[in-house]
């Protein structure tokens, strides 16, 4: 409670939270209602200038830009959120196991992680999209795989450092099992860095998704995502810069929100962790 109060009392915390709230709201709204059907093309009304009818005008297929941005918000955000699930869950599992039990498991894990790291998210994406069929799940899985190492490393790291604490030994002395100690004493203390990382990761994923879509490897059209709206607009930038400007601004706003909030969170939860704000990984 007081924690959130503290968080929101900070400028960046407050602004970030607000912006993120707006984005999330738009996303949810876009899921259920948009001014027009974002997929409905109207060939007689292409590249319409912004007007009362079409607040942001229409695109190369006469689709309402605002509607597409709203639906796009939903698609991008939902992908971002659902992509968080897998890495956080598995990453915590692996990281905790590796950090606490050490030994061969740890070494093996690190090795695989290195391999994953040395492996362009781009190709993972394409490969999985090809295998899974071109749909948002391909993107989600691909990005999940791409971000698994990050989480695992962070969790492993903080498990290692927490294990140094005497209360962990105290628990052992009381005759508690390793598992109990891990779950009751260590993991709760890893929460802070994990929360921060998760927040930041949401930003990374938004970026990665748009980058993938930009390369034509992301969410397949016609379903709009901020990324593929941008890449569709690419060809018309010079004549209709607005088409390219708007999605870019949407992405930037969302990210700004995430980054500000993430910074505030980090300062609150664990100042030492150097988790940096979003950055393309592709």
């Amino acid at each position: 409670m007081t924690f959130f109060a503290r968080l929101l009392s900070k400028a960046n915390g407050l602004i970030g939270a607000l912006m993120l709230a707006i984005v999330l709201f738009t996303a949810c709204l876009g899921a259920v209602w948009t001014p027009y059907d974002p997929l409905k093309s109207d060939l007689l009304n292409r590249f319409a200038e912004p007007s009362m009818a079409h607040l942001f005008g229409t695109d190369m297929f006469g689709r309402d830009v605002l509607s597409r941005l709203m639906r796009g918000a939903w698609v991008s955000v939902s992908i971002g959120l659902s992509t968080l699930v897998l890495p956080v869950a598995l990453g915590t599992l692996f990281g905790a196991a590796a950090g606490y039990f050490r030994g061969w498991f740890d070494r093996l894990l690190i090795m695989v992680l290195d391999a994953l790291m040395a492996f362009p998210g781009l190709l993972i994406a394409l490969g999985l999209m090809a295998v899974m069929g071109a749909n948002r799940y391909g993107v989600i899985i691909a990005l999940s795989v791409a971000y698994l190492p990050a989480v695992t490393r962070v969790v492993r790291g903080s498990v290692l450092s927490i294990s140094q604490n005497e209360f962990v030994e105290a628990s052992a002395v009381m005759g508690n099992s390793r598992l109990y100690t891990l779950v009751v004493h260590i993991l709760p203390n890893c929460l802070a860095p994990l929360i921060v990382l998760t927040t930041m990761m949401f930003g990374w994923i938004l970026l990665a998704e748009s980058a993938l879509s930009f390369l034509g490897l992301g969410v397949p059209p016609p379903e709009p995502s901020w990324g593929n709206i941008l890449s569709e607009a690419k060809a018309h930038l010079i004549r209709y810069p607005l088409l390219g400007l708007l999605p870019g601004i949407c992405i930037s706003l969302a990210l700004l929100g995430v980054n500000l909030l993430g910074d505030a969170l980090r300062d609150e939860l664990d100042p030492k962790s150097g988790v940096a704000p979003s950055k393309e990984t592709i």
Partner: protein
Amino acid sequence: MSELETGSATDLLAIENLEISFGPLAVVKGVNLTVKPGEVLAIVGESGSGKSMIGRSILGLLPAPGRVTAGRIGFGEHEITAPSSPDELRLLRGRSIGLIFQEPLSSLNPTMRIGEQMFEAMRLHTDLSEAQIRERAIDMLRQVRLDRPEALLNRYPHEFSGGMRQRIMIASVMMLQPKLLIADEPTTALDAVVQREVLDIMQDVARANETAVILISHDLAVVARYADRIAVMEQGVLVESGPTRGVLSQPQHAYTRKLLSAAQLGAPSPIEGSSGKPLLQVENLSVDFSEKTMFGLFGRKVHHAVRDVSLKIAPGEFVGLVGESGSGKSTIGRAICDLAPMVSGRVIFDGQELDRLSRSEEQTQRRRIRVVFQDPFSSLNPRMRIGRIIREGLRHDRSATRSERQRAVEEMLEAVGLTAEMADRFPHALSGGQRQRVAIARALIAKPDLIIADEPVSALDVTVQAQILALFKRLQADYGFACLFISHDLHIVEQLCARLYVLHKGRLMEEAPTPVLFAEPRHPYTRRLLSASPRLEQGKDGLQLAETELADNEGDTVDYFDALRADEPYRLVETDAGHRVAVRGYAEIAP
């Protein structure tokens, strides 16, 4: 030199009605102090008393957002609180006022060679040639009794032990022959023996350069030896100041007395155990740490932390385990409760060898052993409420019902002198002393037969230390547990322990009943430890510093085992009942 004479006429440093504030709250209030050239002033106080802030303010280096909000600091003809030019202060620093920190580990720049760090200030403040500066540095390192100084200059800080770093600090600061040296807890982080050396060196060097010293410390006993005058601080207020003897013998202020009584710790009252078969027997315990070289997998270097140590604890007996850091004393404690791996040796608890027992039996036995750790800040899970932390001690006691446990927790809280409502707090809401009480409660709630107390008070302020020790004594009376009391401080163990084991570099040097050990220590290492740890004693005219001057034993020609030559044959010989000493090879000792 000429300045110095003019300065010597008046006070070198004059602090008048100084007030230092962090934002709204004042941490130093209306302090008046003066320092004469060449004299040693000790500022004593517990953590948070603002003593360090005074030191910083003299250099004009208060950590943000701290500011001097009132009063003045005059140094010679300079107004530190109102410098005429920004550079005026800067030029004073180092050249006229030197500063030494508590943490030798963090006060030298880890990425810069020792030489560089010594030179740069010289380059700045003097116009000596590189060669001269180098000469000077080497000479200085000699003064602080470091050998082969030429070589040292090209090494990095992390290559030195704490004590050596602190000497290097002293050298690099004193090199500029400042008129005033501010030493902020210069030896708190060091072992008694080293502490003594470093302080002696500092004193000598200061004398040699006619430098006045402000010695900031929490430990009265330590400073008493060196200080001409003592100033006592409590929560930002200067409660008493005067010549050392005076303050020691006729303390005016109540707080001063409190400090003094805490420092002298009252008369020892060892807790004897019941005779008969020992509760715990450790036989020929050895522990190795094989530290992997960077990027593991390849080669490892083995370090013998504990070698072939045997000890006994009778039921209800308090036994002390003493040694400087790195002597392996904590490791023994950890090995006993299975936190460190033994390479050899047996731990026999209540007549049963633990490793021979079945898993479950071993568990039940082990639950009769509990630990109280050194650092109350890391020994309590920050995300658990106090109540739960203590209750967890009962986790494996299937018999107790929920309500019983609840009651037990409350009783325990009372027992350790905390209130029942603290059960709902989180650790961060408690003071260090309170946390340690919680840790003790957690250990005791399961009514263990043995408690391993690993430096339980060394992280606490002196006054608190006394309380915790008292608490131990009382609880023992109530619960009758035995205790292996691990500490680096002879006087602390002297308080409670019936017998002492002196450990050095993983080997037992001497073992004896406490009074015997203090009265007639045999092993040279023990003797060094004793003489290195000063204490205050009730003398004929009030309190005074008691130098444990040991009758020199020129007569003693025994070839004692020297832990520094680890690989030579080692043997413990019994000189008389319960008094055993480490000797080399088959050397004999006449009782």
